[in-house]
Each structure stands twice: as structure tokens, then as C-alpha cells.
């Protein structure tokens, strides 16, 4: 009967939205490292800990004040609540019970409630005995009156601080990565301390002047000497003792330098990973960015232009020299192989990247990166560079949207310059936004004042703009002459005055930048006004 009731209650909890939501809320607050509320909560808790330590120190020297006592109590309540909440969210008891229940039903055996409960409790205990939970508990318990002796454990509250900062975790990770070396060193050190303390004990104990009265004194002396601290409160008086000291000091110098070098090496190994993580976490803040693979001459030029536009991007390059250059230019960059899936994934190819540029100098790398990127993300724009004509089709096959050949473009420019230098300078100036005059597009949106209007009505020449043509995918325009197929659309060059614009058409306009902006503004204003009237 009781078992049935508990299973029913577990089902009820599982289906309850409020229960799930509140649990999720506290999970986000306390544990979820990527939630927004956690940093604030961590800061608040850190403040409380500092405050409680302050009161503890105050009490040591002065009489405890009533006010301080209340605050202390309040802080304690917060700590206790936090502990209980963490205890609550560490595992889902009702789910464990239900799993057991369903399993037993499936296997057609009798459901043993105690077995399920045991499993659930074991799970909870797993949390209780985790280092952080023990620290939490030790920070609360000493305030309970009968346990006042444990007051010294209040210092554990300081350890609680570790929970709220990630740098300690980092430090312990680094130490853990050198586990083998540290363990070897520790064993050797222990051995040395043992030998040194035993031999100094043997030499010094019989000497009446000597302060070494027990083996503990000898160990204490050995550690103080080994650490090169040497207080001088215990000094050897016999020749044997002094010989031991000399040997111990010489060896300890080696041990200390070995220890330091292990730590430094571990930090150095971890540094690139740390830097990379920083880059990734910065990248996570951007909603849309571009991945540039390869920071050679082409990559540098694109990066410069993009940063002028305020566009966010990340540079990936295999060569340390190029990454160094990108860093010096102030761009986000990682030194890694862009053809690896995990590198592209952690650079956010499926998350916020809008385009990927494969612009290394090596065609093989470009093809490979293109293929990898297309595999990972079907919709991303891929622009690739190649040096050889034969590889253009390979890149398109690999999934590139655009393929660029530096020498083709340069060759074209040189040839055009030879034939008609003036015209070419003009058009390349316009296309590259170097001149005052720019060429831009204006979209005809539904219900705007351009929709269903003939071009003669636009009076573009009065606005000091000239219309080069119209881009449209609309088959209604097919009868017009001068159409050029451009991918799925048509470009209508120099359309007649009676050409009627339709929704989704794009005007290609030449004019001053602010002239075009003004034109766009007016269209937008007109559209908003029209909507208001409706």
C-alpha cells in the first residue's frame, strides 16, 4: 500500500511542471556554469563568506555584539539553505524510484521499494561525501551550540570560496595533469625525510644540549630544513648530525627546483588551451561572425576590411607566426588545424558562424576545410580560394559557394587596365567603395511605395541617383530585353521607363552614399506611414 502511494507520488512529481521548473531554476542558480544567474549568485555568496569571516575575526578580539550575532545567524541560514538545495538537486530520487519500478514491471518481478530507496540514498550520499559538500557542511556545523569546539572549522568557510571561483579548479587540473611526476617526487621526498629524521634522531638524541627529544622533533627539523626555511630553533650539535644536515640541504635544493620546474612545465603546457578557451568564450558572446581559415596575405586583407566594418570574426591558422600576427593586429585567433572537425565545431561553425573563408595558400588544405565545413553545416556560406584553375571545380564539388582565384582577378584587372584605364579605375573604385560614389542595392518590399510602380515614377535623376539595372527572379519581367542570367535570378540592365517594379525586385543604384541612404529612408518612412493609415 505504502509502496503504491510512493510510486504514485513519484509519477505525480514527474508530471508536475512546477516541480520541474523550480528544480531547473535552482539548478541554473547553483550549478549550471553557463546560466546567467549563477555569476550573480556566486558573487553574493562570496560576499556573505567574507562578511562571516569578518565577524569571526571580530569575535576573536572583542566581545560578540548582538547585531553581529543576528547577521551571523542569517548568514548561517543562507548557507544551510544552499546546502539543502544542493542536496535536493544533486539527483532525482523520484526518477530513480520510477526507473526501478518500470524495470521490475518489465521483468515481471516484484517491485522492491527498499532496493530502489537504497539506490536513491546511495546517490545522495555520493553527493554528501563529495569534497565540496563536506566543506559546505563543515562551514555550517561549528555554529551549532553543542559543537562549539569545532569553531576552528569556521575557517572552512574560506574554502567555500573555492566553489565560487574557477581559478582554483584550473590550478587543481594543472596539478592533476602532472600526477605521476608529483607522486614520484612526493615518494622520494617522504623517503628522504624519513632517512634524515631517523639518522638525526640517532645522532642527536643522546646529546644533552640537543633539543631533539622525540622522533617528532626530528621529523619537524627535517621538514624545516628540507623546505630551506631553517628556523634555527633546532640545530644539530654532533658531527654526524651536521653531516646529515649538509646532505639534506643539498638534496632538498634539487627537490625544490624539480618541484618548481614541474609546476612551470604544467602551466606552460596548459597555457595554449587556456588562451584558446578564452577566445572561444569571447566568441560565444557574438551572435554572428565569420571564420577565416588562413591568415596569409589574403586572410589579412579580408580581416582588415571586416574589422573596418565592425564585423566580428575569428582567425584559425596552423602557423604560429601567422597567429602571432593576427594577435598583434588585435583579432581573435587560435592556432590550430582548421581541417579538424572539433576545431571548427568549437569555433562555432554550427552555432553563430555565418560564413567560412578558406583562404590558405595551399589548395589541398582549402579543399579539405571546405569539405569538412560543408559536412558540418549544410547552410553556411563557404568562400574558398584556389591558386590553380583545375581546382575550381573540385572546390565547388566540395561544397564551396564561391571560389576565388587571386591570379585570375589580378590578371583580369591588369588586362582591363591596359585596354581602358580610366573606365576601369572608375568602376573598381566604385566597387571597392573607394570613391565617393557607391553602387548599392535597394530592395522593393511588399507594400512599399516602389511596389507596382513604373521606373519613370521614381524620379531617380532628381535625387541624383542613376539606375544601373534591376535584379529579379520574377518571371513577369521576362519580356524585357537586356536580361542577363545571374544564378537563379535575372539582371535587367538599363530597364525602360515603363518597367514596372514588383515585390522582391532589387534596384542597383549608383550615387553618393548619403543619397542612397536618404532614398532608402524615404521608402521606409513611406512604408511605415502607409501601415499606420491601414
Amino acid at each position, binding site marked *: 500500500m505504502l509502496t503504491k502511494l510512493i510510486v504514485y507520488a513519484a509519477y505525480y512529481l514527474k508530471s508536475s511542471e512546477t516541480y520541474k521548473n523550480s528544480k531547473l531554476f535552482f539548478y541554473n542558480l547553483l550549478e549550471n556554469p553557463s546560466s546567467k544567474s549563477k555569476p550573480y549568485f556566486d558573487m553574493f555568496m562570496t560576499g556573505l563568506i567574507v562578511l562571516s569571516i569578518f565577524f569571526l575575526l571580530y569575535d576573536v578580539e572583542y566581545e560578540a555584539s548582538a547585531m553581529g550575532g543576528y547577521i551571523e545567524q542569517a548568514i548561517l541560514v543562507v548557507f544551510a539553505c544552499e546546502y539543502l538545495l544542493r542536496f535536493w538537486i544533486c539527483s532525482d530520487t523520484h526518477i530513480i524510484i520510477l526507473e526501478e519500478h518500470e524495470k521490475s514491471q518489465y521483468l515481471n518481478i516484484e517491485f522492491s521499494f527498499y532496493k530502489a530507496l537504497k539506490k536513491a540514498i546511495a546517490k545522495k550520499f555520493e553527493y554528501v561525501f563529495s569534497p565540496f559538500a563536506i566543506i559546505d557542511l563543515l562551514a555550517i556545523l561549528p555554529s551549532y551550540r553543542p559543537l562549539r569546539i569545532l569553531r576552528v572549522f569556521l575557517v572552512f568557510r574560506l574554502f567555500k570560496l573555492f566553489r565560487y571561483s574557477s581559478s582554483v579548479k584550473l590550478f587543481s587540473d594543472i596539478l592533476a595533469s602532472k600526477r605521476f611526476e608529483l607522486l614520484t617526487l612526493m615518494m622520494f621526498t617522504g623517503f628522504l625525510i624519513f632517512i634524515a629524521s631517523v639518522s638525526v634522531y640517532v645522532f642527536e638524541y643522546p646529546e644533552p644540549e640537543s633539543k631533539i627529544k622525540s622522533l617528532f622533533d626530528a621529523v619537524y627539523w627535517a621538514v624545516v630544513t628540507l623546505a630551506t626555511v631553517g628556523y634555527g630553533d633546532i640545530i644539530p650539535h654532533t658531527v654526524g648530525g651536521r653531516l646529515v644536515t649538509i646532505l639534506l640541504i643539498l638534496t632538498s635544493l634539487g627537490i625544490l627546483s624539480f618541484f618548481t620546474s614541474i609546476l612551470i612545465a604544467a602551466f606552460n603546457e596548459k597555457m595554449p588551451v587556456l588562451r584558446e578557451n578564452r577566445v572561444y568564450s569571447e566568441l560565444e558572446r557574438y551572435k554572428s561572425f565569420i571564420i577565416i581559415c588562413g591568415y596569409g596575405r589574403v586572410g589579412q586583407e579580408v580581416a582588415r576590411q571586416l574589422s573596418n566594418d565592425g564585423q566580428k570574426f575569428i582567425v584559425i591558422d596552423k602557423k604560429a607566426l601567422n597567429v602571432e600576427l593576427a594577435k598583434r593586429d588585435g583579432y581573435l585567433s587560435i592556432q590550430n588545424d582548421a581541417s579538424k572537425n572539433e576545431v571548427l565545431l568549437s569555433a562555432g561553425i554550427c552555432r553563430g558562424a555565418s560564413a567560412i573563408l578558406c583562404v590558405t595558400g595551399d589548395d589541398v588544405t582549402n579543399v579539405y576545410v571546405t569539405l569538412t565545413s560543408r559536412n558540418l553545416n549544410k547552410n553556411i556560406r563557404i568562400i574558398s580560394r584556389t591558386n590553380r584553375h583545375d581546382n575550381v571545380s573540385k572546390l565547388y564539388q566540395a561544397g564551396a559557394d564561391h571560389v576565388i582565384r587571386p591570379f585570375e582577378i589580378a590578371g583580369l584587372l591588369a588586362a582591363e587596365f591596359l585596354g581602358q584605364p*580610366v573606365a576601369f579605375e572608375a568602376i573598381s573604385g566604385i566597387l571597392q567603395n573607394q570613391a565617393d560614389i557607391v553602387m548599392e542595392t535597394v530592395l522593393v518590399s511588399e507594400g512599399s511605395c516602389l511596389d507596382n510602380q513604373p521606373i519613370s515614377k521614381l524620379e531617380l535623376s532628381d535625387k541624383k541617383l*542613376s539606375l544601373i539595372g534591376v535584379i529579379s527572379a520574377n518571371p513577369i519581367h521576362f519580356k524585357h530585353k537586356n536580361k542577363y542570367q545571374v544564378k537563379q535570378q535575372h539582371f535587367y540592365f538599363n530597364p525602360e521607363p515603363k518597367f514596372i517594379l514588383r515585390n522582391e525586385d532589387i534596384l542597383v543604384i549608383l550615387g553618393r552614399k548619403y543619397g542612397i541612404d536618404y532614398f532608402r529612408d524615404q521608402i521606409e518612412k513611406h512604408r511605415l506611414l502607409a501601415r499606420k493609415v491601414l
Partner: protein
Amino acid sequence: MKQVAVFGYNRLSIEVINRLDKQQYQMIVIDHVAEHIQLAEENGFQVANIDFRIDDDLRSVGIGSSIDTLFCFFEEDSENVFLTLSARALDKNLNIIAIVETPESAEKLRVAGANKIIDPYEICGRKIHDILKRPDITNIFDHTVFGRDDLNLAEVVIPEKSYLANTYVSQLQLNTQYNLILIGIVNKQVSEQLNFVVEDGDRRLNVGDILVILGPSREIRAFKKEVENEFSKN
């Protein structure tokens, strides 16, 4: 026919040579590497194997006399600078177009006397930027003006005694009469600067002005022919 000397036979020069009209330009490929020369000869180009460091050799291929345009397409910037310097010393009016590998060499080439400096990587970078930022316009130009479709950019000089001299821009009506778009006019007497038609409003055309027009090549040819007419067609 214009005489063009191409120094350095490599990917870039092949691109350029393929784009130039064989009817209009007579080309000679010059290199100091024997294999390059052999390759160029196999591809049917007029070649010369000379040392570009010696002025007499340069003179022997016609620099300072018959050559109008010089392409410096060596892969080393220092070689291009040297060639530009020597060629400029031989001929003040030579049209020198040079390629650069590193951006800091551009200034050196300019000082050495190059008319046009081409940085393939910079152009490529700009192009990628254009594709990202203005895909529509880049697409159109790639397919039309720079691509296979017949839409071209042209410059038309107004010759002496042309009927167009002393007419006004507004009288041209290029877009209705010829299906051409007039982008701008360069007034050679004033400066090399292009004056955009949309900017300037109406102005009178002079002999020697250059009209920059955009349109199908048939229309451009028709317009060019018309311009050379001495009398107004009216």
C-alpha cells in the same frame, strides 16, 4: 597595333595574355628562366630569352622604341622594382604595370615609376569582402562585366570635329537611344578625375573628354562609330 612586353611567364601572365585581344595587341613574352621560355614557346607565344638586368638587352626587345606597355610579372618584388627602374629610364612614356608580392614593395614600385601596381592578394581579399557584404552587386559584375555575359565597360574619347563636341550631357540620352548607361566623364584638360554624371548635373562636352559607359558591346560599337561622325545625325 599596340606592342606589349610581358616579363615573367607564370600563372598571372598566362591569365593576362589570355584576356588580351590578339587582334589588338602584339605580345612578346620575356623571361630569363629557360624552362619558362620553352613553355611559352610551346604555347605559341613570341618569346625572348634576355637578361633584364642589362639595358642593351632591354633595348634589343624594343623597350625605349616600339614597346608601348610593359608588364612586370616576376615573382620577386626586387626584380620587378629593378625592371621598372631600368625601363622607366629608357622610356619616359612607357606604360608600366607591375605586380607586388608584399605590400611594402608597392611604394617602392611607385617611386621606381610604375603606372599601375597590382597586388593580387589585396584584390582577392577585397573581392571576398565584397562577396560577403554585397553579394548581389558582386554577382552581377562577375557575370556581366568581368564574366562571359555581354555587358561591358568602355571608354569613348570625343574626337576632334565630332558632332558631340559642345553638346550637353543631357542631350546625349544614351539610355534611350543606345541602351547604354553613362557613368561618368573625365575632362582631360582639368584632371584625370572621373566626374560622375549623377553628381554634376548638366555640362558641356569638350573635345578630348572621355565618356565612361556601360552596356552591351554591340551598342558600344554603334555609339563609338556614331561619335566619330563629323556631323550631327540630325
